[in-house]
């Protein structure tokens, strides 16, 4: 019985991990699509790097091989949590600026925010 429970729990975890990974992939895909639109919308320099922004924690991509998997996940989680807060703040600040024409952008940003929330939940 205990073995069955542990097996079921393991499956659930595996499923969670799998879906977390796929969610991350979707988030990346969406953000990539969104980035161009956002940069254009905000009038930013397309060549500017958004990978490193001051005050924003970075994902553990730089020291990938130096960390264990758990450490990487935890760092990434921390980064996403910070990202979620910052994104929500940004959306709140720019809600008034985004007019009707930018509703799609706003919805996309909100979707990203939701996904970040979901990822955090994962």
């Amino acid at each position, binding site marked *: 019985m205990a073995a069955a429970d542990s097996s079921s729990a393991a499956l659930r975890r595996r499923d969670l991990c799998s*879906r*977390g990974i*796929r*969610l991350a*992939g*979707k988030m*990346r*895909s*969406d953000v990539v*699509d969104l980035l161009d639109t956002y940069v254009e919308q905000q009038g930013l320099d397309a060549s500017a790097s958004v990978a490193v922004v001051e005050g924003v924690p970075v994902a553990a991509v730089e020291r990938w091989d130096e960390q264990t998997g758990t450490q990487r996940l935890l760092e990434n989680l921390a980064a996403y949590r910070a990202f979620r807060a910052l994104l929500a703040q940004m959306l709140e600040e720019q809600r008034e600026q985004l007019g009707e024409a930018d509703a799609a952008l706003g*919805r*996309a940003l909100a*979707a990203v925010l*939701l*996904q970040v*929330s*979901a990822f955090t*939940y*994962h």
Partner: protein
Amino acid sequence: MFSGWNWVAHCLYLLLNICSLEVSGGLVQSCGHIIPESPVLALGSNFTALCILNESCLDFGNIYANQIIWKIKNKVVPKEQYREINRTVSSVTFNDTSSLATPLTCNILADGQIEQNIYGITVTVGLPPEKPKNLSCIVRQVSKLTYPMTCTWNPGRHTFLDTHFRLKYRWPQENFPDCIPKDVNNSCTIADVQFFVNLEVWVEAANALGKAESDPLVIDPIEIVKPLSPHNLSVNSGILPTVLKLSWENRISIAVMKLKFNIRYRIVGDTNWMQVPPEDTASPRTSFSVQGLRPYTEYVFSIRCMKEDGVGYWSDWSEEKTGVTTEDKPSKGPAIWRIIDASRSPASWTVHLMWKALEPFEASGVILQYEVTVRAKSSLSSPPEKYNVSTTNLTLKLPNGTYEVTVIAHNRVGASPPSVLLIPASNTKAPVKNVRTLPKDGKLWVGWTAPNSYVLKYVIEWCLVSNSSDCTIEWQNEPGNIQGTYLKGDIKPFKCYLITVYPLYADGQGSGQSVKAYLQQDRPSKGPTVQTKKVGKAEAVLTWNHLTVDEQNGFIRSYTIFYKTIDGNETAVTVDPSKTEYTLSSLTSDTLYTVRMMAYTDEGGRSGPDFTFTTQKFGKGEIEAIVVPVCLAFLLIVLLGVLFCFNKRDLIKKHIWPIVPDPSKSNIAQWSPQVPAKHNFSSKDQMYPEGSFTDVSVVEIEADDKKSFSEQDLKPFDLLKKEKSTSEGHSSGIGGSSCMSSPRQSVSDSDEGETTQNTSSTVQYSTVVLNGYRDQTPVQVFSRSESTQPLLDSEERSEDHAGGSDSTTQRQQYFKQNGGQDETNTDRPCFERTKQITPANEGDLVGFAQLQISGQSSQLLGLGLEKNTQEAALLDVLQQTSTEGQTVRPETVEGNPLSVDEMPKSYLPQTVRQGGYMPQ
């Protein structure tokens, strides 16, 4: 009286009270109220309401709770349901709210007579919401990034109340705003959902009577996605003629889900879709090459997708796109057949070769031409003849023999395999047996029993049999291993088809076996027209013609003849369809019958027009059986009468006519020698009464004899002739007969004729004068007597000799002429012939007098009874000469009229007055 005043006072008080309240506060203050106010009740539950009276009403109106009456919609609630709690409160209880209606009113009966409404409430009865069931959700992709989720559920029973549904969903750590349905109560759409996170979804239903929630549904929305179908589908021809390459774009990111696909395709014009095996398209892709297609064929393609693992929903089919495969060489040769016309020449055939155009999938392109090769099998040395034609038939005139015909179809890419047809000199192989047909599914099925030998293939010929058109042959090939097929053509119902099956062997051909068939039968379009061929007393022979093929509409199974009298029952007789004649028997004689005829197919019959006939009154032979005995009896009676008359002829003769002296036995010649020896006066004439002459005598006066007559003697005759110039008369050679009638006819003419017969033997010569009645042309003339009395001949000869040879010659000439003319020109009137000789003998005939006495009764009437003026003159003359006992009729001799006084006194046959034989 007191109570009446009391009642009025109460009313006034109430009115004043109400008015005072209106004035004071502007509101109507009721004398009581009901608790609960506007309740919402569950259907089927019990309910109790209280009516509470105000104290003020008690003081002024003496109104108490025991006077309260409860009503539902003006219907008084039974008092058993009331309960007086105290003097101001009354309750009413309903065990089942289904009997409740709105409004529920509390009323009071003032002084037991006036019913006054105190208060009323609205009662709402309904049901609490049921737990929503069958909650299900689907995520329908509407764009690349938008995935709204629609959930539907079963709201449950009708609550009769305003019930609100809410779709609730949440993540374990985050709640979302409820989805509230619009205009419906069983579905709601969440604008956007996020994938890869479990979402808990449930439905809440609530109304005044309660709240209910469905079971929660926990799903990852990615598992219920119905993606958008692939778009921008394109079809391109491949290198091979059997391959087309499809390309498309997917509208869902591979980061969201991996897709698998279904590809379907069909030939343009066909309705059946074919599908690429799903396992070939079970992986993410954006193109696929469809193989195994037909060359030179236009196809329609469509594609759909779903999540690769099969969890979720298939997208809709994409828009359709068409593509055409490239051309290839024909896959098979055309089916070939022939019609042989051997009627024109016994030594050669006219062979009509015909082949079917290849189906598009067989042609694999555009057929440019057919190559036909005819090889005579009997003379292998002769080279085969080749024909290139663009049509599908070829007519050749070939000597009788065995031939092998090959047809090859060519298109731009290449040639088809050859189709070979062997045309044997004669169909000596075994034919098929038991050819039969069966209409099935709107088509005509033909079956047969195969012969024992191996059959290469069968050819089925058929044609529409019609009176109005020729039998145009259609045909089809069937493989040799089957024993039945459907006719592949436009087979029309109600039409007769002649179907023939030929077995084709590797080395010959069997003779065709035929059968007639209908795809569908109907009643005949008309009935047979029946008529009678022969009608008897009790039977009638009916005939009719078979209906034409176009009129039959099916196989004529039988004829039925219906016949009846005017007032009788109709009798029906069934007749075999092969017959065209039938005899109705046991009919009633002399009766009008109406007969009609119906022709029946399997689908029914139709009647032809009515025909009427009347049976005969007498049967065959009946009339003969009556007439013949009657005639025989009549003849017997006549015969007996004749025999009787014959036996009693003497007695009859004695009584009917007296004995007439025979002039031949007279001795007038002896006692009158001065008179020319030859005279033809018949003394008999004098014996008969006037008008009953039946015979005539001729007095011929020869040229020589003329001299013996003085001119005076002849004058009367000339005068007579002159006076009778208009009366045409002439003489015949021998008395008693006419030149136009046979002696027998003369005899049998009449009683007078009989008389003539009786007296003819006594007449030597006669001249018959035919007088036309009045100015009419005589009908008969006489030029010569046909009498053959020898006595007269001898007398004539002796007289001729006595008269001299000249006269004899002339007379002979005269008779010869007459005889000759009689022989050669019998139609010519004898009178004219007589006149022809007159000029020659004119001189000799001066003074010739001829007494013309008609032997015919009609002529007698003309002479004696008519008494015209000429006859009167003649009679005058006769009377003048009667003193000498002679009646003469002179022949006219112009220029030499003789006076009566100058007439020679001679004894001539006299016209006898009636009743006497004048003494001479």
